[in-house]
């Protein structure tokens, strides 16, 4: 991990905080005790109202595993709530269809207005060097609105953030609430801010799906928003294999990482390659570094192997950027100029004109966003 | 009902809002009768010792506090000036008599000689010296927000349950029977402060002041 990572801090032995958290997770948590706690918690909500819980769902490995576990291992009747950011790829759409049918669950899908999303993507890129503000907020706010609307108080998410960064530690029971939304989800910007940034071209109503509901409304249903990963030890590799075998879940190739090793990783988002590229420009490291770190932390790769993979896979300009630029009506020079404004010290900004181009994904021409371009 | 004593000094709004956030019924009041009728009493305050005592006396609030807390033994929380006024004597702008519930003097922080700034403003770690229900569920050395230039020097160290280090050991919290008070501001100390206030709401003092 480079020093430019979020929240990095090193203790006296030079071990970073996130690694210590993983150590804690592996050695100090009584997972049997946590499982018992979970059972007791679920009993409070089981059988009440139309559904036992809401499961926010993207079709990626974590939410698919969460849905599978809650139905098959914990015998819950969930309402699956799928916020659609507009960039789902064909494989993940297929996976979702299959999973939902096999599990036998009610499925609710919501897609925000594309005209508004385009505006939000532009502002998000300019202000924070990140194009997915609408997605970050929609994923975490929209299911909360559904909880209120359908009067289903228990909302169960997948992995806790302490798996990757140090905003929370494994000792704390991470509540997926408004504090967390403001702390780690919304890039420091709320819907109310966006209304001002967009100079009146969107209204508060337009941004309803991205607005966290107010505390009074959530309290009125007695809401409880928790992470499954605080009650069972999270293991993405093992879990991906389970959903592959049980639900026929398929991985997909993603820009910037090797398919064979990470077939399950971040497959649901067509623009993930661009987000990763922005991170590489800003911080000098990207998804390959992130994944190698996880593997090194969990003893599955040596540091030397990791560095070799980073050398091989990072530092390419994603082919998918063409689609994004066309959708946004933006030139690559404009994009680069904005991206370079967000470089985090001590990272030295790369010369974007000389970055080699990465290979095009098999489905790039099939993405529905190509049709959305209006 | 938690009575938050209004004697004209301090940010009562935040204290009331904090209790509201925690689901407790709290009322800002300057009425001696309401204070006598309350289930719990909170004495906040920021400002000078002498002024504080004058305001309490002028409105019969010192008598009301005596009845509610000493006579009827209701759980009591003092905050900042509300801790300092419990002393026998305060030295700010001359000598002034306090409520006298906690033997001791309120004197200026003695830190300028070690190059530290006064007032003591900011977040400081609080070390609990005697385990008690008000600090339950908080991490060891949890930090809280301080903003003061004077401190309570307790004549009886047993009354001190928590201290902060600022050039010297600053009295951070006292506990005597049903009387609890903090030099720091729990209503301004985010999660740690809210936890402490939550504990106060649920607190049943095991011992009481004779």
């Amino acid at each position, binding site marked *: 991990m480079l020093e430019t990572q*979020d*929240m*990095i*801090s*090193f203790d006296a032995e030079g071990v970073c905080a996130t690694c210590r958290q993983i150590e804690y997770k592996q050695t100090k948590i009584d997972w049997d005790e946590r499982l018992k706690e979970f059972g007791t918690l679920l009993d409070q909500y089981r059988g009440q109202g139309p559904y036992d819980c809401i499961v926010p769902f993207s079709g990626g490995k974590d939410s698919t595993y969460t849905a599978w576990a809650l139905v098959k291992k914990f015998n819950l009747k969930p309402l699956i709530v799928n916020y659609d950011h507009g960039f789902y790829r064909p494989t993940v759409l297929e996976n979702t269809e299959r999973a939902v049918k096999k599990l036998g669950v009610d499925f609710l899908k919501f897609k925000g207005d594309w005209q508004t999303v385009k505006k939000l993507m532009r502002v998000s890129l300019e*202000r*924070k060097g*990140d194009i997915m503000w609408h997605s970050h907020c929609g994923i975490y706010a929209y299911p909360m609105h559904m909880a209120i609307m359908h009067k289903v108080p228990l909302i169960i998410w997948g992995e806790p953030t302490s798996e990757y960064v*140090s*905003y929370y530690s494994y000792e704390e029971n991470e509540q997926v609430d408004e*504090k967390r*939304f*403001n*702390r780690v989800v*919304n*890039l*420091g*910007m*709320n819907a*109310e*801010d966006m*209304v*001002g*940034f967009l*100079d009146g071209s969107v209204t508060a109503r337009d941004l309803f799906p991205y607005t966290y509901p107010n*505390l009074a409304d959530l309290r009125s249903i007695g809401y409880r928003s928790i992470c499954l990963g605080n009650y069972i030890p999270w293991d993405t590799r093992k879990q991906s294999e389970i959903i592959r075998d049980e639900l026929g879940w398929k991985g997909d190739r993603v820009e910037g990482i090797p398919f064979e090793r990470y077939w399950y990783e971040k497959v649901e988002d067509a623009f993930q390659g661009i987000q990763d590229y922005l991170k590489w420009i800003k911080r000098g490291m990207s998804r390959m570094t992130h994944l190698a770190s996880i593997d090194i932390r969990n003893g599955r790769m040596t540091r030397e192997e990791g560095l070799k993979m980073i050398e091989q896979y990072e530092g390419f300009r994603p082919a998918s950027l063409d689609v994004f630029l066309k959708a946004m009506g933006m030139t690559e020079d404009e994009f680069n100029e904005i991206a370079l*404004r*967000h470089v*985090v*010290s001590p990272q030295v900004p790369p010369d974007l004109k000389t970055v080699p181009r990465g290979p095009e994904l098999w489905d790039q021409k099939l993405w529905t966003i190509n049709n959305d371009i209006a | 009902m938690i009575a938050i004593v209004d004697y004209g*000094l301090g*940010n009562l*709004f*935040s204290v009331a*809002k904090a209790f509201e*956030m925690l689901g407790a019924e709290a009322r800002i009041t300057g009425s001696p009768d309401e204070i006598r009728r309350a289930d719990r009493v909170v004495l906040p305050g*920021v*400002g*000078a010792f002498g*002024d504080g005592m004058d305001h309490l006396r002028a409105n019969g609030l010192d008598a009301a506090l005596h009845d509610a807390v000493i006579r009827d033994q209701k759980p009591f929380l003092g905050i900042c000036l509300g801790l300092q006024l419990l002393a026998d004597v305060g030295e700010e702008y001359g000598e002034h008599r306090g409520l006298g519930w906690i033997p001791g003097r309120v004197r200026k922080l003695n830190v300028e000689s*070690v*190059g*530290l*700034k*006064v*007032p003591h*403003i*900011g*977040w400081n770690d609080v070390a609990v010296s005697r385990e008690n229900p008000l600090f339950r569920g908080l991490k060891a050395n949890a*930090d809280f*927000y301080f*903003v003061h*230039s004077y401190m309570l020097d307790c004549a009886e160290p047993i009354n001190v349950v928590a201290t902060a*280090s*600022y050039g010297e050991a600053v009295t951070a919290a006292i506990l005597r029977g049903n009387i609890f008070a903090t030099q720091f*501001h729990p209503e*301004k*100390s*985010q999660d740690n402060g*809210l936890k402490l206030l939550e504990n106060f709401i649920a607190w049943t003092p095991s011992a009481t002041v004779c």
Partner: protein
Amino acid sequence: MDAVRNRMLKARLIPTVLLLDGRMIKTKQFDAFRDVGNPTTVAKVYDAQRADELIFLDITATTEHRHFLFDIVSAVANECFMPLTGGGGIRTVEQACQLLNSGADKVAINTGAVEHPAFIVELAKKFGASTVVVSIDYKRNAEGRNEVYTHRGRQPTGLDPVVWAKDAEARGAGEILLTCVDREGMMNGYDLETIRAVADAVTIPVIASGGVGTVQDLADGIVEGHASAVAAASIFHFTDQSIFKAHCHMLEQGIPVRK
């Protein structure tokens, strides 16, 4: 540096929220307004990120719009239980009282203090010294010397910031908020020399303001500038640096901060 380490008192990181007609804005050298959001929701983000305090400064010129400051402080105090300082056009004890009753813990006074230094004494007597923050804006004048300016950087006073800070302290100020107008919004770093000169000259805490561009600037403000607290705004709006990351960086530099 030892004095810094031996304290258990943490160095404070204070985001500043500039208000104009109820909206949050940012300026460059006190000019060129840009909208940066809704002050109440921005405050909630800062609270969630565990900022140590918040400062709200209202630069709305007119008295009819004065209520925005009180309304916003109240809305924030409703949900954020952290220290709040408010300021902007506070000239009377009544206004200070209203601000405190809205939920603020400290009142920042600037032009009001320069024009009537006795105002500092009045506020300190009534509300306690720790409630009174004297805000000092300064820039380099034509003679190349630092000079205090009032009226949002428009009116020269002939005062030297170090001398004025000591005067304010003598009259009962609890803290100094020191802002370099030349560096404000420029993100090129603090004016460390002047910050240190003021911090070393007074026994009350000094909050450094104006110029932060990187998290290292914040660390420098404490270590090199001898400030007790560092204020910043642009870095949190125009970069994806956050309070969390800033605290982490300062901790890495050996500065005691909240974890």
